């Protein structure tokens, strides 16, 4: 049983898949940064994967849509697609707020 307190000390591993420095990618990264600072200050790690540079990773993680945000930890794995401009949906998607 995971308590609320325990989950706050947990490190969130987030991975953002982009394809080059497109406006959508930049918007997504900015939005992600903002949301994390608001809700997960100090307990998150963002890794940005540029598929243009590492195309083979698209296969491994089953990435189709760009941008895609993957919550690797905590489990279960969750995928959020789009430029993360819809704040509400990002929070629901990351399970930071009950639906």
């Amino acid at each position, binding site marked *: 049983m995971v308590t609320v307190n325990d989950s706050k000390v947990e490190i969130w591993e987030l991975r953002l*898949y982009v*394809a080059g420095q*497109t406006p*959508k990618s930049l*918007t*997504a990264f900015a*939005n992600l940064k903002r949301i994390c600072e608001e809700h997960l200050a100090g307990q998150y790690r963002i890794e940005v994967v540029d*598929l*243009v540079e590492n*195309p*083979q990773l*698209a*296969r491994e993680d*089953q*990435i*189709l*849509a*760009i*941008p*895609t*945000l993957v919550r690797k930890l905590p489990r279960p*794995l*969750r*995928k*959020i*697609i*789009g*430029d*993360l*401009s*819809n704040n509400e*949906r*990002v929070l*629901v*998607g990351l399970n930071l707020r009950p639906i």
Partner: protein
Amino acid sequence: MNDVMNATPIQHGSLPKAATHISGLDEITGGGLPLGRTTLVTGTAGCGKTLFGMEFLVQGAIQQDEPGVFVSFEESTDDLDQNVRSLGFDLTDLVARNLLVLEHVYTERSEIEETGDFDLEGLFIRLGYAIDSIGAKRVVLDTIEVLFAGLPNPMILRAELRRLFRWLADKGVTSIVTAERGDGLLTRHGLEEYVSDCVILLDHRVVEQMTTRRLRIVKYRGSLHGTNEYPFLIDENGISILPITSLGLDHTAPTERISSGIPRLDMMLGGQGYYRGSSILISGTAGAGKSSMAAHFVNAAVTRGERCLYFAFEESERQIVRNMRSIGFELDLWIQRGLLQVHSARPNLHGLEMHLVMMHKLIKEYQPQVVVIDPITNLTTIGTQSEVKAALIRLIDFLKTQEITALFTSLTADQTQLEQTEVGISSLMDAWILLQMIESNGERNRGLYILKARGIDHSNQIREFHLTAKGIQLIDVYLGSEGVLTGTARLAQEAKERNVILTRQQEIARKQRELARKRQVLEAQIAALRTEFMVEEEEMEKMTAEAMGFETRLREDRNVLAQQRDSDQRYATPGVNSELR
């Protein structure tokens, strides 16, 4: 047929094409799919879309050394490998030889939250990476419509798919996109709007409990193509589309003649038998001896050292062997030596197309010189007359291009319609031999005549034939004032004729004897008359002599008397005396 013939000349036309090497498809598309463009293959579930795409890639890799990428949106790569293994495709080997990349693109709608604007660049990158890694020339996306279920926002998806097809064209790859067929639409999500070069529709229909797969080219921009629905098959060698080799009437016409296996029938066929490579029809009612005729033909072919393929739709191999033994053929010897193959199948084992493709396949494998199909009429139970006819046209065309002599038997149901074949195929045949049961005087006898034999000076005579332990024996029928007689009627008539002749001979002999006797009688009468006449003659002479003697004596007496009377008439002349008397 016509479409195919029309399509054939543009095979090397202006529009470059990528050969699919799918049996039959290149013929009806005039060379293959549009090179460097996208083809949409649509159809209902289970109609063979995935296999179609896979065969396109596998054949491209094997036949033309063109690497391909298969993007599966539904099945995992392991499943794919398993599924096509049964069709003889070894995907693992092709992957190892860098001729194939299998990509399983997987999306799970419930795991995905949409939070704003996105595109499918990830898919493009994956695809691009896969294409570049092996230098792929061919791409299959199966079934891309799954994305509509796996990703939100159809508006974006549509725009992205449009971009994808353009991007594929820019890449210069020849691609196939498969789609599910929607209600009244070619595809459920209207993909045909984006793919405008070539659309192929696959169909899987059940008619009278028999399934038939069909393929139709809905459109092919910039190219002529067959517009018909073509039946196709999926078997252990992949997809085969009919017609396999229907390239029009340009087959060769060999002049070599081959024996029918019955010497007297050969005599009736201008003394030399059939032409090699011709198609021969033997029609007749049940029990007329069609299969026996076929067995003769087979036996003759095998004796010449040729290979023979026998398709039996009524009897099993063992049954044929047993039954033909009764007329003196040991067919199992030929089977053991590999010169004869018998394939027995009930017609309703599978659909008409399946039968035909099976025949094509067996013929291609076995390379026979002679093919027997016994009987073709049974095929009508699994197709309409026009279907069977169309199928047989294809089969005969195929056999003719291979210079294979084909013998078909046809069962005629009704004695009154002997000259009608059930499937109306007589016009396709080069020779047609009719076996007729001639019924009279409480017995049935077998009659044979040649209805037609193209290019052969053939006999117009009907022959009676017997099935004996030494095979078929042809006998002249009785042809006379009483008409055509066969069997015991012929024997009776012959006996009757013999009787008539005998009676006449006896009559003549009797007449001769009578005449001889008459002559004897006549001669006897002549002899008797002559005797009588001689008697009379003798009597007459006697009388004359007597008369002479009497007169002499009278004169002497008178002289004596006159002397005695001393008459002066003593010297008188006898004439005077007699005047006095």
